């Protein structure tokens, strides 16, 4: 019963981490894609969490090429698919 956590602002990360189980996934959207290029972001997450970031949001901010290889860019269609693969979406 895994959740997809949808994070849209960096400052909401602390609360998101409290509910983020190691079997959950995380998708960075809007301005939160800035986390994808932040040095110490990934080490804050529990081991095993799949991390995605919306491709268009990365590209719009010039961050697509700087994105960590551990973070998978998603097209909008893949975003929709990810929301259905999880059992629920938890938007922060």
């Amino acid at each position, binding site marked *: 019963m895994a959740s997809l956590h949808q994070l849209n602002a960096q400052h909401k990360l602390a609360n998101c981490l*409290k509910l983020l189980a190691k079997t959950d996934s995380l998708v960075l959207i809007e301005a939160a894609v800035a986390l994808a290029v932040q040095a110490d972001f990934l080490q804050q997450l529990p081991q095993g969490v799949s991390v995605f970031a919306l491709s268009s949001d990365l590209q719009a901010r010039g961050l697509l090429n700087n994105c960590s290889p551990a973070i998978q860019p998603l097209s909008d269609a893949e975003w929709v698919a990810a929301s259905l693969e999880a059992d629920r979406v938890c938007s922060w």
Partner: protein
Amino acid sequence: MKASNSFDLLVVFTQPPLTASLAKEGLDLSLVNSTFEQQTGLIFLGAGVLQLHPNQQPDILALKGTQAMLQALGLYDINQLFVDEQALLDYSLTTADLLLPTESCNPLQLQKLLATSRNVLTF
């Protein structure tokens, strides 16, 4: 513990009292949810635990606050309130200090609540 229960909707409060009308709109939704006979669970996360802090006097600011709505939760059969154990520590609180009876949960228990609920909304 109750944290193994399954809810139709989990409502998560993350902000201290009188932060915009967030908490009020989250409680409005919880009450309406209940009238549709949907099981509702409430989590008070991070600074959200302060929503249950006693002695609030929102009228000092000519604001309405959520005390009356919180008291009404029981009438709507919403009795399952969970609080973030770490947040209680951060704010030097215990469950005995809070406005309503709650269950203190560690991260794994909070995560289990999410994992067993159909929908979730954060406020």
